[in-house]
């Protein structure tokens, strides 16, 4: 009896490890592969060596994506939520809705856990912070720094990192591998507004450098006047704001070739009406918005052959870049 119990205890250790590994391996082998673009930072785990901490577009979600019945409920910290995803032709996924119930049918979804208690009424918060268990990417010691260098830092050219993730039918996500975006992006301030500038000069002039960091010859459709770019509010902004859409050239885009290492610089004078946003029902220059309203510039043409989205660092209209 005692011997049998000991055998059970030993078997438990072996079986637990096997189960942990095999259940993940099963997802890697059979799960649906998707690509998720990230913005990594660089810590180190004492016991597990180098790893890159990953932040995803859907790590913080606007509460407007919540299923209607959850909007006025208190969601508890640690509660499981299911984020329905939409996959584009390149395999990149974007969040569509959030629910506490597993989506039916063939919907693509990932299961996450809420990091903070959330009640719309109590906290007035507009974002839900979630964790999906895929926020760490372990690499061989020393390679974390190489990856960080390639990812780039503030005021440097930054190349987006894209995770290849397997999704199981229950929403479990397992990282399989990573790849790099085709275009590197560098955002700099060309001119900041004076402290006491009037409303017509209240915003900064930014420059965005776009560089082909791949080994392929690429072609990007580009409209004149940087009209192929739009803005997107950052996840923690109080509300999502949109451009007024004034004075932008909507003519057909020009096909611009980018050979490897080719780059091109775009200027964004945020004082121009083209970059004004609709804030409290008024056309407002970005430089006049409160400090927590920050944005990213996003390339907005449909391109199927480009790996990764072209997204700038976050900035405030007065020229402060994250």
């Amino acid at each position, binding site marked *: 009896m*005692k011997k049998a*119990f*000991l055998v*059970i*205890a*030993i078997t*438990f*250790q*072996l079986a*637990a*490890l*096997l189960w*942990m*590994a095999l259940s*993940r*391996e099963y997802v*890697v082998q059979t799960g649906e592969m998707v690509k998720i673009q990230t913005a990594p930072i660089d810590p180190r*785990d004492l*016991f*597990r*060596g*180098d*790893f890159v901490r990953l932040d995803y577009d859907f790590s913080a979600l606007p509460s407007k994506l919540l299923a209607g019945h959850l909007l006025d409920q208190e969601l508890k*910290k*640690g509660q499981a939520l299911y984020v329905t995803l939409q996959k584009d032709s390149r395999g990149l996924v974007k969040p569509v809705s959030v629910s506490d119930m597993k989506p039916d049918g063939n919907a693509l979804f990932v299961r996450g*856990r809420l990091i903070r208690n959330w009640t719309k009424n109590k906290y007035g918060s507009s974002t839900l912070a979630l*964790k999906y*268990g*895929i*926020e*760490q*990417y*372990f*690499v*061989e*010691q020393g*390679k974390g720094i190489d990856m960080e260098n390639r990812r780039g830092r503030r005021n440097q050219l930054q190349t987006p990192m894209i995770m290849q993730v397997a999704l199981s039918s229950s929403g479990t996500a*397992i*990282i399989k591998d990573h790849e790099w975006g085709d275009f590197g992006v560098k955002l700099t301030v060309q001119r900041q507004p004076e402290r006491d500038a009037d409303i017509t000069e209240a915003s900064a002039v930014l420059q965005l450098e776009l560089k082909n960091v791949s080994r392929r010859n690429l072609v990007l459709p580009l409209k004149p006047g940087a009209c192929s770019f739009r803005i997107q509010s950052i996840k923690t902004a109080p509300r999502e704001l949109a451009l007024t859409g004034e004075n932008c050239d909507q003519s057909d885009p020009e096909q611009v070739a980018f050979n490897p290492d080719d780059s091109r610089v775009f200027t964004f004078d945020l004082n121009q009406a083209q970059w004004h946003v609709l804030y409290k029902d008024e056309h407002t220059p970005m430089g006049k918005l409160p400090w927590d309203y920050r944005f990213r510039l996003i390339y907005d043409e449909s391109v199927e052959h480009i790996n990764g989205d072209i997204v700038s660092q976050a900035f405030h209209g007065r020229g402060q870049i994250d």
Partner: protein
Amino acid sequence: MKNPHAWLKKELPHWIQDGIIDSDQARQILSRYPERHSLSWGKILISGFGAVMVGLGIILLFAYNWDAMGRFSKMSVVLGALAITHFFAFRTRLHNHHLSESLFILATMLFGAGIWLVAQIYHIDEHYPNAFLLWGFSALLLAWSLPSLPQAIMTIGLLMIWHFSEVMDFDFATHHALLLILLGLFPLIWHLKSPVLARLVSAAFFVSLGLTTASVDEHLFGSSILLVAASFIFFSFWSASLPSGWLSLAGDELAKPAWLVFIVMLFLMSFGDLSDDLIRVRFQEPVESFYFYLPLLLSQLLFVWLMARRQFSIMTIVIELSVLLLVYPSVVGGVYPAQLYTLIFNLLLLGLSIGLIYQGSHFADTRKMIWGSLIFTALVFARYADLFDSLISRAIAFLIVGGVLFFAGTVLNRNRNRNRKETS
């Protein structure tokens, strides 16, 4: 004497040889003093600590995370190492106990390494305290099945890390941590017949109870742990009356952390500001009633049991009085005489410290003497700022403390010398 069993085992053959007692009497005498399963720290340091270090080394080795080594190779190495270690530990368990014990410790460390390695291979960033829970649970299974004190100690350490992480990093009260200790570790004290484990499990239970109750409601924390401490101490008073055996020893060891908790709580309640926060439970959630009334019921049942057996002592009364004072504001509600409470808790602590100093010096018990002196000094230091404004009164307070301790020390030395002469 720390270990009379070992001493008797050595002496009894001589007594039989000299014709003082016969072998039956020797057996009866020996059975009155059960073997203390004390930790052999030398062996722990050399083999157990060595195994832990090897395990940590393996974790760090894999932390390098070679790209050239595929995930199947890494898993094969860890699983293979775990299986081989278990194989040899299992094979040697009957003829080389210490080697087997060390190998099982190494296996548990390898299992922990395996958990982190799987997390590394598959880039898992889930709720990390679960890894410590799984690790601790596997050590608990081995502690039961071997049975093994080092595995039990590892279990306590891992479960404490798990519970601490849950409360501190995630704000989860984790009530089942207490259940795991109650069902998994307390019966293990009986299974291993180990007073050392009794002390460690008791300490772990207080830590877990403190963590859980503090995260439910900080006002519940004080009452809950003091009521459980009173229960453990009452239990030890009862077990002390049993014929000398491991239960008596276990009761004594269970009560040691309880005494510490009791004294610290009494000390905290001697501060007027703190006592109100500590003793008035709000009962905002049903779980608060559970953590308050269950220990209260237990402590009172044990008190009645002691009274029914006519096991009176000053300490029993002091503890019961503290319990009644503590629960009154929460049970009855309304206004209570806060200043009188503070005064009573100060007097209780003063009485306790003087009692310990007296007993320590009179019966030449250095441990009691040290505890009494520490409590007395801490009390005087605590009241130093509250009560004494002038330099003269402060000086007098220190002179009294110094005088009492000097006098008690002299009595202790005199009595120790007298005892030594009597035994020689």
